């Protein structure tokens, strides 16, 4: 059972118009990351989850998605604390976030 989450429905994210061409691919990759985390968690491959978390932390904010960076940070901490529940929490948060956001290019 996951933790209570904030409802992000309809959350508008303003993204630099310059990045419009790469954003769909980026978000698609993040959707895949949700599945990947699930798979890695199942195989208890915590090292890879940590590396993924680190990558998300470094990439998300750069594209304009600060929350993705926060989720990446949570993943890193969760692996360090050996807390699979926290990893799952982060996965669910990422999935929910990706489902709820609406991109506005400015």
């Amino acid at each position: 059972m996951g933790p209570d989450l904030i409802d992000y429905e309809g959350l508008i994210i303003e993204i630099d118009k310059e990045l419009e061409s790469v954003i769909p691919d980026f978000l698609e990759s993040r959707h895949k990351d949700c599945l990947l985390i699930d798979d890695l968690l199942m195989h208890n491959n915590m090292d890879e989850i940590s590396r993924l978390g680190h990558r998300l932390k470094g990439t998300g904010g750069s594209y304009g998605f600060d929350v993705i960076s926060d989720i990446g940070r949570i993943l890193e901490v969760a692996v360090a604390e050996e807390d699979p529940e926290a990893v799952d929490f982060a996965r669910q948060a990422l999935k929910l976030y990706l489902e709820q956001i609406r991109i506005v290019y400015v």
Partner: protein
Amino acid sequence: MTFIRLRTKCIIGFTILNLLIGMALFFLIRFEVHHRLEQEIHKRGATIARHLAESSVTPILTENTISLQLLVNNYVKTEDDLRYIYILNARNEVLAHSFGTAFPKDLLKADEPASGANKDRVKVTKLRSEEGLLYDMPAGIQQGQLGQVHVGISEAAVTKTLDGVLTHLLFYMAGIICFGTIMAVVFATAITRPIAILAAGVKQVGMGELDYVTKINTHDEIGELAGSFNSMLENLRQTTVSRQYMDKIINTMNDALIVFSQEGVVYNVNRAFGELFGYVPEEMIGCRVVDFPKQEAPRCLYAAFENAFQSGYLSHEGTCLCASGKFIPVLFSLAMMHDEQGKPQEIIGVVNDISGIKKAQEELEKKRAELENLNRTLEEMVSLRTAELAVTNEGLRAEVINSKLIAAELKIARDAAEAASVAKSEFLTNMSHEMRTPLNSIIVGVEFLGEADLGRDQSRCLEMIGQAGKNMLVLINDLIDLARIESGRLEIVAEEFNLPEMLDKTVELLSRSARIKGLELLLDTASDLPVIVVGDRIRLQQVLVNLVSNAVKFTLQGRVEISARPGPRVDNTIPITFVVLDTGIGIDEEKLQTIFETFTQADSSITRRFGGSGLGLTISRRLVEAMSGNMQVESTPGVGSSFYVTVPLSEPAAISINRDGQNANGCRNGQDFAKNIDTVLPVVLLVDDSRENRELLRLLLLKKQLLIDEAGNGHEAVEMFRENEYDLVLMDIQMPIMDGYTATRQIRQMEELAGRAKTPIVALTAHAYENDVQACKEAGCDDHISKPFKKAALFDCLTKYLNGA
């Protein structure tokens, strides 16, 4: 041997020479004149005799002896110097004579008949008479056939004439000898005077007067000798220590010194000797040691040396009598001085007063004896006490063990407390991080919901949640900082930054809050404020933001003013004083003392009224102190407060950028850098294992006039760097195969080995703690950009490192 001056010798010599010459001349002249006068008399006598012989012919033939006698008398009367005349006939009978009545018969015996062999040759016979020597000159009458005429002339005539001549001669010769003697004196003086000067010079030099200069300007051998002498003196002055200098050294010595001859005559004594033994040094010089009393120093030393003369050196301890009659213990050294040939010269003695040492030795001996006594007593006491202690020893051992146990427990307790403190700080840091992440999401969510169409109560509720979230975020950030400071993990970095730009950004950051409250937010920077400085930009800005936001928070109306002024430069460091002034509520005087303490606000009601954790000022002050600065506050309740922050910032060595952001090449220090790039485009190497990040960076840099290469890990980056030249490397740190630290180190090593110029490497790291940044710098990175990065940060970096490309 009697000393006779050269001048005297010369005068005597010249005078004797004059006398000898005079005497020689005298005798020569006397002999010659006498001879000539004698010849003259002989000739005259002969002439008279011949004349008489001729005049006697007729009277003899007529036997008229009377005529002959008259003739003789007539001649005798007319010629003064004639002593006699007598005429003999052929039978040698006297016909006439000038002797009066008695004719001296012995004349006839001595007479020999005149031969007529040589008519011109006068035969002269010297006769001695009572009147003296007489010259007898005969002349034959008719060649002797008729008889002979004898004329006798006294030598007195010759002597008289000769005496007259010699009298004159002696007078002249005396004059000549006097003149010659005067000339001898003059010449002798002229010759010997320079020699005397030279001799005096030699004597002075012999006495050690090396500064003496002989003043002889004659152009002769003596002049040359004087010149050579002066040259020799000059050489001596350069190579020899002068007598005055030696005297000065000897008289400055604290050791007493005496020099005497082998015969025991005192040659020299220094000041210290005089002072030690109570003599006047000048009075001692020249005295014989035997003139001193037996136990007095000079005699004592001389006697000691005589005893050990064979060794040539003596060092001895003894006692000497002073002039005052007091005995003093001395340590003396005596040595024989030798000349260049090894011949013994003078004896040198050095004497030290060892009264103090002797006294100290005696004291020491006394103390040693006392100590030995004390030691013996102590040993006895210890033996007694040992016996007593043996009884209580067991009890003490138990006490010692107990003490050790207590100490061990205390150590364990202290270690536990320290570990707990560290654990607390780490826990606080970690927890704060975890709290901040969801809190960010809450704040974003609340802001988003605020834009939705909600009822009034719902909006107020949302506003309260939002405000609470923001307050909580501030508190968490403060807690993280405080925990980091307290756990000693706060690291101050030194990086170059644009100071006016940082101040502008600070003001810009808080301008909205000030505007909402209707406050005026002013920035005043000094004209001589340095532009590019080296310091911890982030921490300095944090302090200023904190102070300004406090000022805005506690000011209800009026203004908040920030000013920055440079202080006097010390080496490369300039202390910059930042003042944050407000017209707010102010702080009571008694609260000013505690305002910087943790969790303290001037009034607890303030927290309720204005919010805030109460950690801001504490953190600010701790940060300022960590930057080697100081922070002070002045405040008047109801009027306002002024916070003074002074932080030492240094200037970079090479970069020179003026107030308008113009660097030395005239390029603006901003986004316009690309305008200055000519046809040669800068090449940037992007190193990141994330394809998405590389894509993003490429996209962002697309509009910049740059050439971009990409590497997926550190190893690829190193290989590409080996093959190509880059103007900038953007290096991710955490990568598979080879991480950014290793790659950076290898690149730096490669540059060093190949002698390549250093390429700027900027780390892209999601680890943004100070120690991570420090690790990047240690690996060789010039700078870092925290991930996730913002476009502005990326462009600032490009401006900074590609401006000169």
